[in-house]
């Protein structure tokens, strides 16, 4: 096991963890307003495929990212219509959205399977210029990676330090009370879903445009569900989500490291570590978890008419 292999694994963890963190942040916003989106997988896929298609057609990754962001917001609007306006069950609506995403992304992405794109420029991490080339190539990150931590802080600021965030959290805790104090729960939930969807779209854009730079059917491979788990792991807090995404991708990286060093452990069993870790943390937190989950998460706001 060399320093180089450890750094390589770390670098790949940062790349794969970025889209996860964006997605988790998006889900945090939605769940803080009281809406669970089990269809993240579908939102990610549609955003990733449409962003990739636009990047391929236009040659501009930035246009692709923009389209991904919009696609994410729009996909979440479907969930919004079903769960907010039509008062449908959130879990069922989310799963329907997931199936929709499976299908739509396959249709959008089909002509672009195996195509190559010009990706985002990667910039060397400041302070690592002096390193030899083999090392420094591991520290070249694209702009979306540099932005992800500031975005997490921005979301934290929005949720906990602005009036909008206060209203949003109030709706997530008790929509009726929020309504009584002059807020519009439906509108706020739509806003939260759209904002959250845009972040999920950004995560998807990083996955297909910046990281893997290709499109394959069902390329997200469960990331949506991981993000849902990470939201709980991070107790619905954007800053703890950073830790969550790091732990998760760190576990994945650790497992790659073990494999590269020739330790004979089944990769399948190692793959389960992050999920089991999340479960263990949930159990450990068990008692006081109630205080952190938005109280009306998953409940339908019936309105006051």
């Amino acid at each position, binding site marked *: 096991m060399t320093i180089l292999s450890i750094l390589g694994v770390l670098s790949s963890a940062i790349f794969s963890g970025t889209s996860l963190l964006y997605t988790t942040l998006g889900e945090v916003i939605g769940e803080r307003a009281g809406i669970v989106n*089990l269809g993240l997988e579908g939102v990610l896929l549609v955003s990733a495929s449409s962003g990739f298609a636009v990047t391929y057609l236009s040659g501009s990754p930035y246009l692709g990212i923009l389209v991904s962001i919009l696609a994410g917001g729009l996909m979440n609007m*479907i969930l919004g*219509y*079903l769960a907010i306006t*039509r008062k*449908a*069950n959130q*879990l*069922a*609506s989310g*799963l*329907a*959205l*997931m*199936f*929709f995403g*499976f*299908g*739509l*992304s*396959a*249709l959008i992405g*089909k002509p672009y399977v195996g195509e190559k794109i010009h990706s985002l420029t990667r910039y060397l991490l400041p302070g690592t210029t002096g390193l030899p080339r083999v090392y420094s190539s591991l520290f070249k990150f694209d702009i979306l990676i540099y932005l992800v931590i500031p975005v997490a802080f921005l979301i934290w600021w929005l949720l906990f330090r602005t009036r909008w965030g206060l209203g949003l959290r109030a709706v997530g805790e008790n929509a009726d009370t929020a309504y009584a104090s002059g807020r519009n729960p439906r509108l706020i939930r739509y806003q939260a879903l759209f904002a959250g969807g845009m972040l999920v779209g950004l995560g998807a854009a990083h996955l297909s445009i910046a990281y893997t730079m290709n499109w394959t*059917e*069902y390329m997200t491979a*469960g990331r949506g*569900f*991981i993000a*849902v*788990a990470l939201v*709980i792991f991070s107790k619905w807090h954007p800053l703890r989500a950073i830790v969550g995404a790091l732990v998760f991708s760190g576990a994945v990286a650790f497992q790659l490291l073990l494999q590269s060093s020739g330790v004979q452990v*089944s990769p*399948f*069993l190692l*793959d*389960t570590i992050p*999920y*089991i870790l*999340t*479960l263990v943390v*949930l*159990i450990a937190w*068990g*008692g006081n*978890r109630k205080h952190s989950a938005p109280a009306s998460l998953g409940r339908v706001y019936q309105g006051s008419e």
Partner: protein
Amino acid sequence: MSKLTETFTHFPVVRQKALQAAVRYLLMILFAFLMFGLILLISGKDPLQSYKDILSSTLGSAYGFSEVIVAMIPMLITALAVALPSRVGLINVGGEGQLYLGAAFATFGALTFSSLPAWLLLPLMVLLGMLGGALWAFIPGYLKSIGLVNETITSLLLNSVAPKIIGFLIFGFWHSPMDTVKTANFVAAARLPTFFGTRIHLGLVFGLVLLLVFWLVMKYTRWGLEMRAIGSNPQAARRNGIPLSKYLVIVMCIGGAIAGLAGMAQVSGFYGVLLLNFSMSLGFMGFMICWLAGGEPLGIVLMSFVVAVITTGGNLLQLTRDLPYAVINILLAFTLFVVLARPTFFKGTKS
């Protein structure tokens, strides 16, 4: 007065309501087909021809129809695995994982005791499959009953773990000499019997009998009454002396056992081999179907049938229209969207 009108006047409300509901669902599904047709048109395919293909390949021939029934079997069972826990207020999103574990346990039986005769081996596999699913459901059920973690979250997490355990078992121990992504083919004694020369297997009987038993238990037994009591008001039920946490664990485990049976039926009746990632969201489909059917047995049968027609038709769409198989999920999703949204212009009364 003819006999027909007599029955009509006898049960006017019931007949009218059932008819209304049937017409409403039919209209909704038609609307979903219309929207999917639009998508097909946009992507340059002939929607009319595509629908003709879907319908003629599924309902147009005896073989096609039998394939629909085959696709329906795991959906019936996984939907029931959601319906039962939902009666006590438990949300079992973990059907997918329970199905995998059931399949793994059943496969263990099939590979280890392959010399046993079918009349002994199959019941053993059924029991093992149910045990596997029940064990996987015990974790969320137990954690919920002691008030630690919500069962929705736990069962979702375990869904992601289960396929990896299957992968571990296949790669590590069970894979056939020729192939690393599946086990060796099961011996004939480990295969569920099929009927009428089609691929319809005994799993259909499992599903239908279980649905009937479910209906009878809920309607006529003390357990059914107590479960309904827990479902409508758990605290009141507990104060009335119903052992709440015991019920939560046991019902969740039975739900898991049913999902495990679906897994056993898939590997033993359908594939005859344990494949990596064989389920392809069957557990989630069961959740959707159960929800759309309102947890009612008859509704589950009907919705499973509709979903099975759609997914089976998707195979043909892939072959003849040069579309990815996954595209059929759009039609499935539209159907789900329309039913979930219950648009007012179908004049449906919201329940």
